[in-house]
């Protein structure tokens, strides 16, 4: 079912779900939403499944004309959404009439917004996911970002009689400062004590080289003991590599699946999702946690996500 006609594609808009799991051994990255929390919430707000596909919007949003009556929700970075030129709220179900135009203004905070459609975005699943992997040229709409005149397809499902909104106290606030909790290793022993201290005690700035593959960071040089290369091994989102120049590279969801720089630490799962909202010039501070603490955080995060559907407010 045709839901939207793309009038303008925005800076970099792609179809994403929670990702493509199980193919790392074939060199296929996980992909999926950079900010998974906002994607899941966007889905819940239109009573979709958590893993349904949404549009991921980067910094400058698209302009979309509705080809049918539908319901949407917009979450994530503060993207100044409008319907027919009128500013509309984020983090709640929105009614969109046939012919209406959804557009976006300036990204006031954060980097990425998520637009869900009641029933989910429909593209052919590839290896079990609708996520777009641009470098591999598959998933989403023909393996690429949106372009003008694309049609966004959806499923023919009944619209909700009552919409939802996110309780205000649960809406995440994104600033330009991020705190990333990490578990040191797997190759932390390739760094001097001073190198580790530098990593855990200084702020790093996100450079212009920051995209779905990863972020290069600028900050004080992190010192290796001797070698700055390893025989390539596997990577996962959240891994922090330190090449010879001592400047961290944070691995994100579309990164290559193997790499040859030592990994000083890996960011814990909930914080990787949060860092999906970091943009160039934002600051990141790393702090160490132990695995047991991280697992406690993950259990908390899952309990919260599982309960989130029930915590949403029904609109009357």
């Amino acid at each position, binding site marked *: 079912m045709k839901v939207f006609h793309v009038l303008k594609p925005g800076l970099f808009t792609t179809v994403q779900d929670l990702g493509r*799991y*199980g*193919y*790392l*051994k*074939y*060199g*296929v990255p996980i992909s999926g939403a950079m900010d998974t929390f906002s994607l899941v919430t966007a889905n819940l707000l239109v009573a979709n499944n958590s893993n349904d596909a949404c549009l991921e919007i980067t910094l400058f949003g698209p302009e979309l004309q509705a080809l049918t009556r539908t319901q949407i929700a917009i979450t994530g970075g503060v993207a100044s959404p409008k319907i027919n030129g009128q500013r509309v709220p984020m983090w709640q179900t929105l009614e969109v009439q046939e012919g209406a135009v959804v557009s976006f203004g300036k990204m006031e905070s954060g980097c990425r917004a998520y637009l869900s459609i009641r029933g989910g975005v429909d593209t052919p699943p*590839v*290896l079990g996911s609708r996520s777009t992997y641009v*470098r*591999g*040229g*598959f*998933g989403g709409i023909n393996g690429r970002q949106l372009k003008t005149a694309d049609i966004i397809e959806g499923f023919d499902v009944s619209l909700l009689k009552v919409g939802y909104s996110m309780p205000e106290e649960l809406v995440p606030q994104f600033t330009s400062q991020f705190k990333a909790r*990490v*578990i040191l*290793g*797997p*190759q932390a022993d390739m760094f001097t004590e001073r190198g580790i201290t530098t990593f855990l005690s200084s702020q790093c700035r996100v450079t212009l080289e920051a995209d779905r593959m990863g972020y290069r960071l600028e900050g004080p040089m992190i010192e290796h003991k001797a070698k700055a290369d*390893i*025989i*390539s*091994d*596997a990577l*996962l989102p*959240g*891994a922090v590599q330190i090449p010879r120049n001592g400047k961290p590279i944070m691995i994100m969801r579309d990164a*290559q*699946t*193997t790499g040859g720089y030592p*990994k000083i630490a*890996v*960011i*814990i*799962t909930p914080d990787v999702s949060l860092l999906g909202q970091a943009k160039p010039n934002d600051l990141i501070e790393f702090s160490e946690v132990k*695995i047991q603490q*991280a*697992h406690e*955080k*993950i*259990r908390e995060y*899952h309990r919260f996500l599982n309960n989130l559907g029930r915590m949403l407010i029904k609109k009357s």
Partner: protein
Amino acid sequence: MKSEPYMSTRYLPFGDHALLIEFGDVISLKVNGKVIALNEALQKAEIQGVEELVPTYRSLLIRYNPLKTTYEQLVFHIKDIEKTLKESTTEVESRKITIPVVYGGEYGPDLTYVAQFHGLSEEQVVRLHSEREYRVYMIGFVAGFPYLGEVPDEIATPRLETPRLKVLAGSVGIAEKQTGIYPCEAPGGWRIIGRTPLKLFNPLRQLPALLKPGDNVKFRPISEKEFKTVEDAVLKDVYSPFSEA
């Protein structure tokens, strides 16, 4: 000594939902053999909470669900399995695949350079590259890219100083002692000596990558004419590069 595995395998945390098992920090059949053997054993073991295994040159990454297991439990369980592997010396059964390649010319624009670099003829380079069997050490870089090793010292060649912006799909390259095949068009710095008409990666196949770590690969020099024939057969999905064991 340098080609040897670590005296004791290193079990390392990789964030909050993965475990990295390192067997050494070298490229060697012995180290990679341990990776492949444990990978196979863990596939069979179906351990609670294990979600994905990623074998590489010298380590095995295990992605797990922290809601279903703990790091300590996993390490304990896998160390037990690793012990049983040390006792049995059975070789891992590996598939044999023959990759047809047109060497040189527009198919392999760096063949001349590689020959000159080593003071060999192009024919000698082709013979040296295609006469031995290679192990698939890992798949990485781009979807379906196999890292194969190792080429004879006589043809080991450093990467291009400035990588090409575009290397064609199917290109066969050399980087130091490694050789590999580009599954899709990509930027790259390997010395391209030939090209195969085989499709190394297709996301629409159930098994998207043609090769997997542990496979044995041999290159077979072919003519331009045969390239076209094989290309047609590949398109019609009637070409099999696998040979009977």
